[in-house]
Each structure stands twice: as structure tokens, then as C-alpha cells.
């Protein structure tokens, strides 16, 4: 059985006087222990909302999130007992309390796991930082170093599922793949699952066992990384892969994906991707493909 299973999840953002925005519109996903799942998609497709909902940071409108056989409850005013899910956020500059020592913040994670043996310095060492950094404040560090500290704090709590919500997109190109690999290695070593969210397919390919492609609130394709990379089947996945720049010295800009992500307030009828799809058929305009692993009428399972 999977460690995390998200079934037909719907998350709406409501604000007074405006129609509800369906950020996640019926997405299903599973993560097993020791497995790395990469969730990719353009900005605004609902990746982060999905991740936040899994942590209980966004209320769920419909569908279910099950972690280890238990439903995930929204984070309210009560103390959270469910500490098996930890998250590494996108902005490394907002992830650490500027007024507290780095070591104290990592120690919070150790206290969560009731770990009295490990010291914060040990964890800093595991994420590739010098032990003496424990006695410093966050403002002394670069974005990449801060993200490593945030990873150390999350890992200190011995999570069984680690979620990275675009943890590398605010980092220097040189730090991106290092931090991504670090997250993968540490999560897999600990036997935890990792849900890694990114819009950078080339980094996700390096670390993920499986890739899930999200478009406008739905997962449109799921598959083993190698298969999706070698043989993408959904037209949107194909377009995403074509949009990766190639350092071949030719100076050719990647193929562009025409149009923008539609407004999730009022998504297109039928298949959500049909207005931008090069292979659009009649059935696409009328009926939404609600099957997997490839939600496209060209790949309807028989």
C-alpha cells in the first residue's frame, strides 16, 4: 500500500466577492515509502496547492488525502501530532526564523522526533554544512545554504514523507541540482517518500523515480521517469519536454508552447488542454478524459 495516496483531490481558493478558484480539480497521486515522485507543471497549475493540501495547510474541498492509512487533517489551532509529513518550502529566505540560531531551529526537528542522541551539528554535517554553523543566524547564509538548513530541520523530525515545494527554484543554477540530489539521497536513505515539486523537468529527471505531470489542476500523465522522458505520450508532456533548452551550441531557442495556462476560475470545456493542443479532436472539446495514466483521448485505455 502506498504511503501517501491522494484521491480525486479538489482544492478551491475562496475569497469573498469572487468566484472560487479551483486550483486542484480532481487530482490523484500516490507516493510509496522510499520512492521519489517528481510533480511538474507550469506556474499556476496547482502543484503548490496540492503540496500544501497534503501537509494540511490548505483545506480540502473534495476528495481525500490518506497518509499511512490515516486521513490528513487540516492544520488548525491544535498541536499537530501528524509529524510524519514535513515540507521544504520554495523561499529559503522565509523558511528560517531570522531571530533564532540555526542550531536551535534544527533542534526543534529533533525534539519532534524525540531524538536525544543526534545533535543539530550532526544534521548540518549530513546536509553538507560545517558543524559550527549551528551557532550562527540565518542571515549569514546564502539561499542554497539556507535551503540545506531547512532540509536538515525537516529531516531531523524523521519524516516518512518529505515534500519539496519547488525547493530549488529560488536557488542559483549551480546549487539547484546539488540541493535536489541531496534531498533525494537523504530521503531515500531514511526510507522516506519524497514528493518533489518543480517546474524544471531536467532536474526532476535526475532525481525522480516517477514523474507526474500536472496541468490546470489535474494530473495529465504519470509514469516512470525513464519512460516519460523517452516516450512522452500526453501532448502537454511532449510540449514541456520540447521546451527544455539544449546546450548544443546551436543557439536555438526551445520550441514554444503556444498560449498560456487558462484561468482556473473557468477552465475550458472538455479536455483542459484542448485549446493549446496540436492534436485536438472533436471528442476533446466535449468530454474531459478522466482516466490515467495518460489523461488524453489519444491514449484512452481499452
Amino acid at each position: 500500500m502506498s504511503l501517501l495516496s491522494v484521491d480525486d483531490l479538489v482544492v478551491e481558493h475562496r475569497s469573498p466577492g469572487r468566484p472560487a478558484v479551483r486550483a486542484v480539480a480532481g487530482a490523484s497521486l500516490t507516493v510509496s515509502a522510499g520512492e521519489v515522485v517528481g510533480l511538474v507543471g507550469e506556474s499556476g497549475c496547482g502543484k503548490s496547492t496540492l503540496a500544501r493540501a497534503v501537509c494540511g495547510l490548505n483545506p480540502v474541498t473534495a476528495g481525500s488525502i490518506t497518509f499511512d492509512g490515516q486521513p490528513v487533517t487540516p492544520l488548525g489551532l491544535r498541536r499537530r501530532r501528524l509529524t510524519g509529513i514535513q515540507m521544504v518550502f520554495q523561499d529559503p529566505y522565509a523558511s528560517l526564523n531570522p531571530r533564532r540560531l540555526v542550531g536551535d531551529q534544527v533542534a526543534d526537528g529533533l525534539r519532534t522526533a524525540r531524538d536525544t542522541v543526534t545533535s543539530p551539528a550532526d544534521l548540518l554535517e549530513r546536509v553538507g554544512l560545517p558543524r559550527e554553523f549551528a551557532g550562527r543566524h540565518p542571515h549569514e547564509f546564502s539561499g542554497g545554504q539556507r535551503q540545506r538548513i531547512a532540509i536538515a530541520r525537516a529531516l531531523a523530525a524523521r519524516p516518512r514523507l518529505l515534500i519539496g515545494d519547488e525547493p530549488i527554484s529560488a536557488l542559483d543554477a549551480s546549487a539547484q541540482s546539488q540541493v535536489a540530489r541531496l534531498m533525494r539521497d537523504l530521503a531515500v536513505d531514511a526510507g522516506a517518500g519524497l514528493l518533489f515539486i518543480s517546474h524544471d523537468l531536467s532536474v526532476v529527471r535526475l532525481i525522480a523515480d516517477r514523474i507526474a505531470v500536472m496541468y490546470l489542476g489535474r494530473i495529465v500523465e504519470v509514469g516512470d521517469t525513464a519512460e516519460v522522458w523517452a516516450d512522452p505520450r500526453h501532448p502537454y508532456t511532449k510540449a514541456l519536454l520540447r521546451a527544455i533548452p539544449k546546450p548544443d551550441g546551436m543557439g536555438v531557442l526551445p520550441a514554444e508552447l503556444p498560449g498560456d495556462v487558462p484561468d482556473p476560475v473557468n477552465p475550458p470545456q472538455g479536455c483542459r488542454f484542448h485549446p493549446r493542443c496540436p492534436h485536438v479532436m472533436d471528442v476533446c472539446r466535449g468530454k474531459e478524459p478522466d482516466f490515467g495514466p495518460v489523461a488524453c483521448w489519444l491514449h484512452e485505455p481499452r
Partner: protein
Amino acid sequence: MTRDPLARRGLLRRLPEAWRQPLAVVGAVLAVAWIVVALAAPVLAPHDPLAQDLPRLAAPGPGHWFGTDQLGRDILSRVLHGARVSIPLTLLLVTLSVLIGGLLGACAGYFGRWVDETIMRVADLVFAFPTVILAMVVAAALGASLGNAVLAVLVVAWPAYARVTRGLVLGIREREFVLSGRLLGFSVWRSLRVDVLPNVTGPVLVLATLDIGTALLLLSGLSFLGLGAKPPSPEWGAMVASGVEVFDSWWVATFPGLAILTVVLAFNFLGDTLRDALDPRTARAIKERAL
């Protein structure tokens, strides 16, 4: 090990610039001088502030530099002793306002919903009245005494802190490090204490420094109106009030009035300096003006 190198570094780096402004120097010198006076008044004062053994309504001159009042008391000694009444009470008052207003505002911002509604509507209620009038009503209802005057000013002063703290907490409670703490199993109280409050104290303290002057004015205003200190206490507001009765002897009201003026100015200058030092945007503006 330093407790908080972040704050100390910021202050050490920025304060010198802001402190080079003449108003900052004036404020600092005045404030320090008044605090010294408040501590050392019994040594500094030439006479007993309550003894009525000098000629009545004598003009300022040798022996009694600020003159004497209608009961033959030395005004200089009374003004110096007045610092022992007004300054500690004002500081206590502002501290209590920050604590009460800050905590209520933080709860309102952090918990939201009905907690927020309740606290902020009460604050709005207080804001809806003119400050001085409301303080007068409260002081009058409680009975004239210095303690009740402090209580009255407290009632009108806390909502300002509640509002500012609430706004700051609203901006910080969704920050990732606060959420991370909650995901690690922090209780809401630990989250407030460890992650939220330490990150909002700076601006609130600047507001408090700026507010010391206002609080002193309000407190001596109540005494001036007969709702605070009772005679023969050498409270500045009450002294100005008694000077009004003998308008021809200008010194009776003028010197305690000047005392109020200088303390209020001193703390306003200090507050401005602190704000400039902690807010890089205004600090830059000062630099440009100075060039």
C-alpha cells in the same frame, strides 16, 4: 556568545548615521538628563519640595532660581521632584500598554476569526472616542488619583499597539518558518512565542518610544484637569494648573510646563531616531538630506 547578533549588528551599523542628526543628540542628552534628575532629585533639589517656608510668589532669583509658588514652596525643587512622579509612571504606563495591546493584537492577528473580531471591535470602540475625553471620563469615573489616571490612559492607549501588532502578525503568520514550526508540532502558543513575537518587537518598540511623549502629555493633562495627582504632590500637570490661578506670577506655571515640553520633545526625538535607524528607507532619506 552574543544573544542576538542580528539586531545588534543592525543597530551598530545603522545607529551612528541616525545619531549624527542634531535632533537625535538633543533628544538623547535631554532624556538622559531627565532620567538623572529623576534618580537624583533629593540630592539636586535645594529645598524640600513640600516645605512652605519661603516667601510666597517670589520671582526667580538667587536662592530660588525658578521662584516660589503661592504657598511659599521652591518651584525648582518641585520641578526636579516632579520628574520622580511623572517619568516612572509614564514609563510604566507605556510598558503596560505595549504588553496588553501587543498581546491582544498578536492574539487577534494570529487566531483570527471571533478572537480577532472581538478584540479589534473593542479597540475600534476606544478609537471612536476622542482620546482626552475618554481618558477624562474613565479617570472621573474611577475617582481622582494618580493611579487611576494611569489606568485611564492605559484604557485609551492599548488599542494603538493592538492594531499595529495585529497588522505585523498578520504579515508574518503565513511565513514559511512559522508554518514549518507548526508542521514540526509546535503548539500555537509556542509558535507565537518563538516564531511570531520576536519578529514583530522592533516596530512596536519604536512606536512605544514615540508614544512616551504622548502618554506623559495625557497623564499630566489629567492632573492639570484635577483628575490625577492630588496636592501637595509635585506633579507637573497639577503645578501648571495651580500656576493658572496666579497668572501674573508667570514662573509658577512656566517652569513645570517647560519640564513637560522638554521630556516630551526628548522622547519624540529619540523615537524618531530609533525609527530612522531601524527603517532603512527613511535612513537613506536622511543620508541624502545630509549630503
